[in-house]
């Protein structure tokens, strides 16, 4: 009976928490909040709410906490240094998704109506969550930005008005990789007869680039072998035995998390040159190479931004954010790949907010306004230098048709202690990628019964 008493107490506590939660949920009823936005004087219109979906636990925690941390630090920097954007303070709230789709959806629904105008934009930081939010965000008219991940065919703005896989996508990346190989080998004609192994996670994400590589193999006459890495990829010995037999010239490392690290050790064992292993940008962080030790030296990956602390914006963060003990991550990680990627998230988001403010006034920005801004984004080299991010990222220009906005990629090499950039920005084969995106998005539109937009105002 004592046990039952204890249980009852536990239940009571749970019920109370549930009540709290209910209250929290009801507080931000959609109609209510929009009504408040129109009339309520106490709702801070000069505060811009920004939701942060993050994962600080689980196998991919370095990515989640790194990007989330960099993103938040950049927002704090704008508040501390500039007093927000045009006087509008940035307010953000974190929600832990644990890299779990259901939790991600809950976070989205929890945060989407917060703030004066609701959430302006979401970065899901997970391909699974991006998929899960496509229907919802389109219905709620809140843009989703997936920087360097997510749904590749969403680059087609005519079918996905609210989804923005900005800067670059996986297909662009792979065309850039092949171009890098051509450059290194000394011309596109050298590709002929070359053997390339595409080592990819046996997973929708991992398999996504198979069609583009097949097409390019046909175009340039190289031979591509797709070797699937069985999930979770902690043991890839049998794959490298095959690679030993195939004797390829290049190996593409398309993995995520632990499965990025394992190939480096395996390559070292069979003495496969590490500078001929080309990683996807999700296999190109310090966290991926450090556990591999010496085996990682020379390893090359793609990236779409710069690494290190030698950018004015990173220095500003160190000064204004960490100098005042307002950082959101361990200071040792500032300047790392994931961290800087987070800063890019911040730059893209806030620049879009700035653009939206120029049209709608200096106040909090809502989803549809943000959508307009994201379709008219033009971050030039000059603007990047102004922001202290010259060379940190490539210029970005989007349109209502093109939600990618550039696709520029650069290579980086691990020298044993840090990432060193290799050459400049590489242009992807936009024509090839564009055709494939159209094909894929047309299928989506057909299945979902969507009529593609024919002018910017459609379907908004």
């Amino acid at each position, binding site marked *: 009976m004592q046990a039952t008493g204890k249980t009852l107490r536990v239940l009571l506590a749970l019920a109370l928490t549930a009540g709290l939660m209910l209250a929290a949920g009801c507080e931000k009823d959609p109609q209510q909040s929009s009504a408040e936005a129109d009339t309520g004087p106490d709702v801070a219109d000069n505060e811009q709410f920004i939701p942060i979906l993050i994962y600080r636990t689980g196998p991919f925690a370095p990515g989640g906490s790194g990007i989330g941390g960099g993103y938040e630090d950049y927002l704090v920097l704008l508040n501390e240094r500039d007093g927000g954007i045009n006087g509008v303070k940035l307010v953000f709230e974190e929600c832990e998704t644990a890299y779990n789709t259901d939790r991600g959806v809950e976070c989205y629904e929890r945060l989407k109506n917060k703030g004066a105008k609701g959430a302006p934009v979401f970065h899901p930081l997970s391909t699974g969550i991006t998929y899960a939010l496509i229907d919802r965000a389109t219905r709620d008219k809140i843009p989703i930005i997936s920087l360097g991940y997510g749904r590749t065919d969403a680059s087609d703005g005519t079918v996905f008005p609210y989804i923005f896989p900005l800067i670059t996508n996986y297909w662009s990346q792979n065309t850039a990789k092949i171009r890098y190989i051509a450059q290194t080998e000394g011309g596109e004609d050298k590709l002929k007869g070359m053997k390339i192994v595409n080592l990819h996670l046996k997973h929708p994400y991992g398999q996504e680039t198979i069609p583009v590589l097949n097409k390019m193999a046909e175009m340039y006459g190289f031979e591509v072998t797709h070797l699937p890495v069985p999930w979770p990829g902690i043991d890839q010995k*049998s794959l490298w035995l*095959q690679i030993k037999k195939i004797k390829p010239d290049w190996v593409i490392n398309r993995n995520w998390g632990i499965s990025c690290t394992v190939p480096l050790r395996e390559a*070292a064992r069979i003495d496969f040159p590490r500078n001929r292993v080309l990683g996807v940008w999700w296999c190109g962080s310090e966290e991926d190479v450090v556990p591999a030790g010496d085996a990682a030296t020379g390893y090359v990956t793609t990236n779409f931004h710069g690494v290190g602390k030698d950018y004015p914006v990173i220095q500003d963060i160190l000064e204004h954010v960490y100098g005042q003990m307002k950082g959101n991550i361990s200071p040792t990680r500032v300047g790392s790949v994931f961290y800087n990627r987070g800063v890019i998230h911040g730059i893209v988001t806030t620049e879009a907010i700035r653009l939206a403010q120029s049209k709608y006034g200096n106040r909090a920005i809502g989803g549809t306004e943000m959508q307009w801004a994201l379709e008219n984004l033009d971050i030039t080299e000059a603007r990047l230098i102004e922001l202290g991010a010259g060379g940190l990222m490539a210029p970005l220009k989007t349109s209502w048709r093109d939600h990618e906005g550039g696709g520029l990629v650069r290579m980086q090499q691990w020298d044993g202690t840090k990432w060193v950039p290799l050459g400049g920005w590489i242009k992807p084969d936009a024509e090839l990628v564009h055709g494939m995106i159209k094909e894929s998005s047309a299928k989506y539109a057909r299945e979902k019964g969507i009529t593609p937009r024919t002018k910017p105002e459609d379907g908004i």
Partner: protein
Amino acid sequence: MEEFLFFMEVLVSGLLQGFMYSVVALGFVLIIKSSGVFNFAQGSMCLFAALGMVSFWEAGIPFWLAVLLALLMMVVLAVAIERVVLRPLVARPPLILFMATIGLSFFLEGLAQGIWGTQPHGLDIGIPDRPFKGFPIDVSQFELFAAGVAILLVVGLVIFFHRTRIGRALRAVSDDHTAALSVGISLRMIWGVTWALAGMVALVAGILWGTRLGVQYSLTLIVLKALAVLILGGFNSITGAVVGGLIIGGSEKVAEVYLSLYFGLGGIESFFGYLLAMLVLFVRPYGLFGDEIIERV
């Protein structure tokens, strides 16, 4: 000839990999053997042990002392688990205990990463992961070392079970709980000792795999292979864990390499071990070396 050497290389790497699986499976076997608990938290214990050890080491403590400290930590953890989780759940159905170990695994993952963070750590114990020079086939020095450790571990455990007083007591318990209790063996002590032993095995597995993968959350995923090894060999057999590891390691590498090279069916390693184990179980429902559970009517 070249084909044959390649086949041998595939097979040998598979067998060596099998030892790595066995080390993980041993932890399960120990606990099932003495307390009948299917401990799902074994993977989290590997993470906890290895993360602790590597953090001590990085803090400047000498290697062996760090290992010793981690060992001590696992003993303390074992005692705590016995007191907080197992004792209140004694005599509950196996499924309930299984669920409790799932809860435990969440707790340990949170605890380990809460204390030591989520960043991966490199771990280099000084054995190069490179093949020996001059061999017809490539055999990694590290893998041979790992296999040696696995064999030592098994020999050590066998000696422990057969030659020491407490080891014999453990065997008595696994044979008959009530009988063991009636001759005055304390179940609490037994459970504490086995969980400490399992913690020790987890530390060894954590260090071996951590050298390979880096010490990070993904260490918890190594149980996925160990589970197949476990049912193939039999839940309560140390021999089974080793033989099962070798069978699964060897066969899955051969299957993966040849099916992938010649039939384009790659990535089957994620389930091959389970299918193989399932086929074996059709013939021997309690694994190759597991004790049959006899139902009396």
